[in-house]
């Protein structure tokens, strides 16, 4: 597994598709984001900021100094270079925010490319929930940095509720402090193509990262999710759970989950799982777990991956109790996603996502996202 991080665009040549990390990528859709060119493009922002949190713009230099990680690929390096600085969300040390911070971003067209950079910093001992949601249409290269300082706790939900022609590439760089807790949920429902890469690094022992994802790809949609958990601190934990449902001709998903346990990371506890549910004959799901262990002293390490068809026996069981077919399918699919959705603490976001998944199934009372 490659662990190259750099702000230097020259470190990341234009992908040809032969590189391991670009092998599965929807490169044709992403092509405009390989060009090293500035852009005036912006997304519209709407925010809900609870009392005490601070949102402000910072320079590229400051963002570089504060970010959780340097970029991991060409698009994230270009986004850092061309975003014109970053937006910083600060959760002050010691502050507690049961009400979620909401950052809603929306676009109105695929041109021009939008380069974006968002930093989220949770100060020592603070606790917060942040929901970042994407709507509309864009050609969006968005870097998000999440730093959770010592003893702090963050639940971060990123929802890709794009219209069906949006293209989104992103690097979600996360860094977990000593005894800090981070839970991320990446939910990709809309867009023509998405390639979302998450990195997890630790700053000290006792860090706990729960990395979850949910995607629902319809006909023609291509979603790629990658996570790279870099255990180099002792006695940290990571748990990676990605679940996807796919339906329709050409629906395509890729999940690559890398976990690296460095020699220094004694006492690491890690598990990762990806499961895909194929709702018909049209889709294809690729699933690649990689676990590399370079220390003899791990507390636990495992991975699992499975892609399966819709279970007709489950459907029969529910229907044999009078539950109509559509509702039975909805129950089974929502049940499949339950361990991701139930992990979302904010009821408003959880129920909104459940409705969005139902809408994907075509049975909901709202427009397909």
């Amino acid at each position, binding site marked *: 597994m490659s662990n190259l991080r750099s702000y230097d665009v020259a470190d990341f040549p234009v992908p040809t598709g032969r590189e391991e990390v670009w092998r599965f990528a929807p490169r044709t859709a992403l092509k405009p984001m390989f060009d090293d060119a500035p852009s005036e493009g912006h997304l519209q922002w709407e925010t809900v900021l609870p009392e005490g949190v601070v949102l402000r713009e910072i320079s590229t230099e400051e963002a570089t100094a504060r970010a959780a990680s340097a970029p991991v690929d060409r698009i994230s390096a270009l986004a850092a270079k061309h975003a014109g600085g970053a937006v910083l969300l600060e959760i002050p040390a010691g502050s507690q925010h049961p009400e979620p911070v909401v950052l809603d971003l929306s676009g109105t067209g695929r041109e021009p490319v939008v380069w974006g950079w968002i930093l989220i910093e949770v100060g020592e001992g603070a606790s917060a929930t942040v929901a970042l949601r994407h709507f509309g249409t864009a050609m969006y290269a968005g870097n998000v940095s999440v730093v959770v300082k010592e003893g702090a706790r963050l639940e971060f939900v990123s929802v890709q509720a794009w219209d069906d022609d949006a293209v989104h590439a992103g690097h979600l760089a996360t860094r977990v402090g000593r005894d800090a807790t981070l839970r991320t949920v990446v939910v990709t429902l809309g867009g023509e193509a998405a390639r979302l890469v998450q990195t997890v690094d630790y700053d000290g022992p006792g860090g706990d990262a729960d990395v979850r994802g949910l995607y629902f790809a319809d006909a023609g949609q291509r979603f790629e999710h990658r996570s790279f958990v870099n255990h180099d601190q002792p006695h940290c934990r990571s748990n990676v759970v990605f679940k996807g449902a796919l339906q329709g001709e050409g629906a395509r998903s890729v999940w690559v989950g890398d976990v690296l346990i460095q020699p220094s990371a004694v006492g690491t506890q890690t598990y990762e799982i990806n499961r895909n549910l194929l709702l018909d004959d049209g889709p294809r799901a690729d699933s690649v777990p990689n676990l590399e262990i370079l220390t003899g002293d791990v507390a636990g390490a495992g991975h699992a991956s499975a892609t399966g068809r819709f279970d*007709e*026996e*489950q459907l*029969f*069981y*529910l*229907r*044999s*109790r*009078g*539950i*109509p*077919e559509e*509702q*039975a399918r909805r*129950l*089974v699919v*929502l*049940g*499949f*996603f*339950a*361990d991701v959705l139930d992990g979302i603490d904010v009821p408003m976001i959880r129920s909104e996502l459940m409705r969005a998944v139902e809408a994907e199934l075509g049975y909901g009372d709202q427009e397909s996202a």
Partner: protein
Amino acid sequence: MTELIIRDLHVEVESDGAPKEILRGVDLTVHGGQTHAIMGPNGSGKSTLAYALAGHPAYTITGGSVVMDGQDLLDMSVDERARAGLFLAMQYPVEVPGVSVSNFLRSAVTAVRGEAPALRTWLKEMRGAMADLHVDPSFAERSVNEGFSGGERKRHEILQLELLNPKFAVLDETDSGLDVDALKVVSEGVNRVRAGGEIGVVLITHTTRLLKQIPVEFVHVMWQGRIVAEGGPELAEQIEADGYEQFTGAGVAG
């Protein structure tokens, strides 16, 4: 009175890519208020009959008819049959990960009754039915059948029977995997439903264990996809004493 009339039912499954006839002309009439037992050695086609009645897609009806309450059952979808009043307690209840028992029960009750029960009375009703069957209240939040023991699955089936209160219930090997105490709890549940006096019950079993707890009026013996003997409760006693050979020829053990 309601009736369930099965006439000359033929059912095939696909086995190694070729159709295989399992039921070869089954006749059975059950009136509301009656309790019947279908007995027979393993592999004789009892579960096939149960699944075919419920409409499981693996079982193809190639002949005959099933009429429930004057309606052609075979013309209905799986869920329509259930809403029309048919219930199947399965031999192997299916796990549905992520769907909680309470959500499942409420969805089923809503579908069968045609309207959602009022939340407050519903919770009381569900908890009461669970308590009657010695199902721990924590099961309401567990995924349907996931990680349930054999006995817990069976109690969960009878819980549904009690809440859905069907016109006809087919209970497939409900006694298998139950210890003595659980058998008693489950039988009491079935007997509570029978006490209403309206339901028609078909108990499928290959042993006589359950019949000691649930009195039956009619016993049918199935063998190789046909009913080969019929009678009253004395037939079950005869089977208990002498096994199935008397009906099947030599060499078949229960």
